[in-house]
């Protein structure tokens, strides 16, 4: 029997509005073992925490129940507060009377009754809580960054600058990511490549950074501080150590008609290629799907022209296994497939392009050398229609429910740059809303409208239809004017929604990290832990967590890096003490638990046990590695004798909660 203190939080009116907190405190005060019960405005506030700490000391509390918001919100806060008052933090239970009570019920009587019952369950549980002490596990002082875009690079650089080794795994042949494809950046209009490529070089040259380009994560084992990751280094058929990046092979290769991904397929590359001039690492890669030599065995031109003798057709994928203390996910984004949107005519006309394609069309290194030309006939477009929210903020099947966040600004940028360079061009922007919450953003947008005379039209484009003469008939509504517009455009640019890279879901499974329904990685806490995933030791950087622009990405990258550094500077980590535990005296040795453990945390050994007749009998018994166990409890249910139990969520505790709830 513990001496229990109960603390009921008002949460302003969040709880007190629908739950009679005084009654709750009074009723719970009558529960067996409860020696102190009170209510307070904000338990999580410093004053609230002090109240709890004082009560612990004054009433010699052995257990604390806090009736407040979700334990997912403030359990840690209260545990820490109680620990400061000398109470074991695991003697604290939180009854969720806000998210799961006051916020969903309107009737005070109903809410109060439920709050009391939830409080009772927590009290019943605390009675069976045992002080838990966290174990320790060592930290491997190396980080893995998955994704070599600006997010990944910045994270890697920041970690490496702090003196820790970092590996970057990039699935493409070069790092750089989407930012490398962008022409200019808003709102400053500085050249993207000019600010990005030096960072790429920094990464390549940093003694603490090791880049695995053209590689993918194969599997992930282990746990925070001790991840073991298998990296698949895909075969480039080019010896990295020998290739000088001279590019002769990429000029001589006879297979010429491969759409160049870097330029969004708007020009061609060879079968052996270097994605772009500033690629890092600057190493040629053979595309095995198109290479004649690899497909048919006939050719071998590149091998002949390579002075360094770097071409190796026999190269195989290589699996490298390395240990890491922390993993940062920076898998970035792609634009959604616009061909699904029939109304925009993307599939019907070459002159309906995405904004990223537009970036390439205006980029000096792009297919047109930076001159804005229509893809279909290479002529200068005179009327350009930009369509925002193509697939964003959409409830349709093909669209995305969220705002892609960057489109408003880059569309303003595109419109402005077009008007600046080609003042004879008519530029229309169709928008639902223009969202410009950022430093100098609104000024930038207003400049586009006011100085550059971009026609901003509030309304959505209903139909883009290619005409026989090559022009595009754009049907749209002007919501403000309340009229239908018909525009004959030469070029339509779609600001498509962005979505997480397709590889992210598979990766999330490997990392046991969670994702939301849009495949964005979930953060450990949306407000307070935005760069951590719920899986300890896995951090989030960049758009894989949600849409953001470059400065935000870089900021988050730095934040993720600082979290990683904070982890890596520790020599030991304290483990989650709510882990499984095996009672040797009850264990049958059946190995059921071992089979279901996803972490390989359970091992068996044979021990001799004294029988009642004093003879010794060998028996296999399970033991749990507390550093590896994550506390899911799969083993506990597999165990028929109940030898395996989960600390913090023991059979007795859960049953006590059931009992209390069903009282």
């Amino acid at each position, binding site marked *: 029997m513990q001496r229990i203190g109960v603390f009921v939080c008002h949460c302003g009116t969040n709880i007190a509005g629908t739950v009679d907190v005084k009654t709750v405190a009074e009723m719970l005060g009558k529960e*067996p073992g409860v020696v102190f019960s009170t209510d307070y405005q904000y338990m999580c506030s410093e004053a609230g925490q002090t109240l709890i700490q004082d009560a612990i000391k004054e009433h010699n509390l052995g257990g604390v129940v806090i009736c407040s918001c979700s334990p997912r919100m403030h359990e840690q806060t209260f545990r820490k507060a109680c620990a400061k008052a000398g109470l074991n933090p695991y003697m604290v239970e939180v009854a969720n009377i806000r998210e799961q009570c006051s916020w969903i019920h309107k009737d005070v009587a109903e809410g109060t009754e439920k709050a009391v019952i939830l409080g009772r369950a927590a009290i019943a549980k605390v009675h069976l809580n045992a002080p838990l002490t966290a174990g320790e596990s060592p930290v491997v002082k190396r980080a893995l960054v998955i994704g070599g875009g600006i997010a990944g690079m910045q994270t890697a650089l920041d970690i490496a600058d702090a003196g820790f080794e970092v590996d970057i795994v990039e699935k493409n042949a070069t790092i750089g990511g989407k930012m490398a494809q962008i022409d200019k950046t808003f709102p400053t209009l500085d050249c993207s490549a000019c600010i990005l490529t030096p960072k790429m070089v920094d990464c390549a040259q940093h003694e603490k950074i090791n880049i695995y380009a053209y590689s993918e994560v194969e599997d992930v084992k282990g746990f925070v501080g001790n991840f073991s990751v298998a990296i698949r280094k895909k075969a480039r058929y080019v010896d990295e150590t020998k290739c000088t990046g001279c590019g002769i092979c990429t000029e001589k290769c006879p297979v010429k008609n491969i759409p160049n991904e870097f330029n969004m397929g708007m020009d061609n590359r060879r079968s052996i290629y270097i994605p772009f001039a500033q690629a890092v690492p600057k190493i040629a890669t053979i595309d095995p799907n198109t290479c004649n030599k690899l497909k048919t065995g006939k050719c071998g031109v590149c091998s002949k022209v390579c002075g360094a003798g770097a071409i190796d057709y026999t190269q195989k994928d290589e699996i490298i296994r390395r240990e890491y203390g922390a993993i940062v996910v920076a898998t970035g984004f792609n634009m959604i497939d616009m061909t699904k949107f029939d109304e925009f005519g993307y599939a019907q006309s070459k002159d309906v392009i995405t904004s990223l394609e537009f970036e390439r069309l205006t980029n000096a290194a792009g297919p047109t050398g930076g001159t804005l030309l229509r893809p279909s006939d290479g002529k200068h477009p005179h009327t350009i229609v930009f369509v925002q929210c193509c697939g964003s903020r959409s409830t349709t099947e093909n669209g995305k429910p969220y705002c892609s966040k960057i489109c408003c600004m880059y569309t303003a940028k595109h419109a402005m740059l077009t008007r600046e360079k080609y003042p004879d061009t008519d530029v229309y922007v169709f928008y639902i809303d223009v969202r410009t919450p950022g430093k100098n953003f609104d000024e930038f947008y207003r400049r586009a409208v006011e100085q550059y005379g971009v026609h901003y039209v509030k309304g959505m484009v209903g139909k883009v239809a290619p005409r026989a003469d090559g022009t595009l008939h754009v049907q749209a509504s002007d919501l403000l004017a309340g009229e239908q517009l018909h525009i004959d455009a030469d070029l339509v640019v779609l600001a498509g929604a962005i979505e997480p890279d397709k590889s992210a879901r598979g990766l999330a499974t490997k990392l046991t990290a969670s994702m939301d329904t849009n495949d964005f990685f979930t953060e450990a806490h949306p407000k307070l832990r935005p760069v951590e995933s719920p899986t300890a030791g896995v951090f989030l950087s960049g758009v894989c967590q949600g849409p953001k622009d470059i400065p935000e990405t870089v900021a988050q990258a730095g934040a993720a890096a600082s979290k990683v550094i904070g982890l890596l500077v520790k020599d030991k980590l304290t483990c989650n003490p709510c882990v499984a535990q095996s009672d040797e005296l009850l264990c049958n040795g059946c190995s059921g638990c071992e089979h279901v453990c996803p972490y390989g945390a359970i091992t068996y050994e044979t021990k001799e046990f004294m029988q*009642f*007749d004093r003879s010794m009998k060998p028996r296999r018994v399970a033991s749990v590695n507390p550093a590896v166990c994550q506390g899911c409890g799969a083993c506990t249910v597999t165990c028929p004798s109940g030898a395996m139990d989960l600390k913090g969520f023991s059979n007795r505790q859960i049953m006590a909660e059931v*009992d209390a709830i*069903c009282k």
Partner: protein
Amino acid sequence: MKLVKDLSALYEAIAAVQELYLPVENKGRVDFKLYEAGANVDIKTLKTVRSAKDFFFTQTETLMGFKVEGKNIEVEDLRPEVRPFVAFGVRGCDARSFEVLDKVFLVDPVDTVYEARRKAGTVVTLACGRPEETCFCTNFGITPEAPAGDVTTWLTEEGLYWQANTDKGEALTAAIAAVFTEGDGKAVEEQKKAISDIIAKLPLANLDMTHLEGVKEETFWGHPVWKDISETCLACGTCTYVCPTCQCYDVRDFDCGNGIERFRCWDSCMYSDFTRMAHGNNRNTQDQRCRQRYLHKLVYFPRRNEGMFGCVGCGRCVAKCPSKLNIVKVIKALGGK
């Protein structure tokens, strides 16, 4: 001699005055059940699966309740109200078992629940028309042809002969006087004779029990039969639960959420945790537990109760033990056979 020709009329008559329990068949198994019209009464089958001890010593019995609030406790008497009842069709062995149980429950301090039931119950026994090969009650001086009880009955071709033995029996007889006619009782004598003849042929009816007379507690202490039996004893409670005289019980608390109920339930000395307590267990191995069970019936109990054995030879354990271990084997083994 009193004779009942129409058995259903008898059941109805008894049921009209008291609760009537009698053997009822259910999927080939017969057990004592409360009589209700249309019940599939089966008084020909010799032995019910469960013994008749349930009448007085039920498998579970709620005794009291506790209301706990804060530091306060309130005790509530939850013992059931006992209404007068008739146990019909009890065989001689089970009838003896009541005497055995009396020696435990009715000695000071008297078990009030048992006592109440015992007082409320009228036992109507039935002579064993067809003794079985598992029967060995005669070794304990039981007369299956004329069993004890408040009333003894014989089921003959003529009908059911009825003989009241006690005041309670007379009272019941008087209460249902209308169902009786008079018979000459010849059939009873014939049946007694027939039963005796069968008993002479029963394989276990004449066990040598002389070696159990006047023995001390430690006489059979180190006997090899204990280890022998315990090798394949499954440590289940079948023998104790079908036994009419096994009376060990446990007192347990059940938390109902809104209070605590303390109840008594059968327990078995064959269970490994029977004697386990906070600091040890004085009967740790199955051979010790087997020894306790059999010696209790054959030596300890007689020593305490003027030689009365704690076994009544009903043969249920002989038929029901999953490993076919039983007290007959023990008696024989102790006798050197």
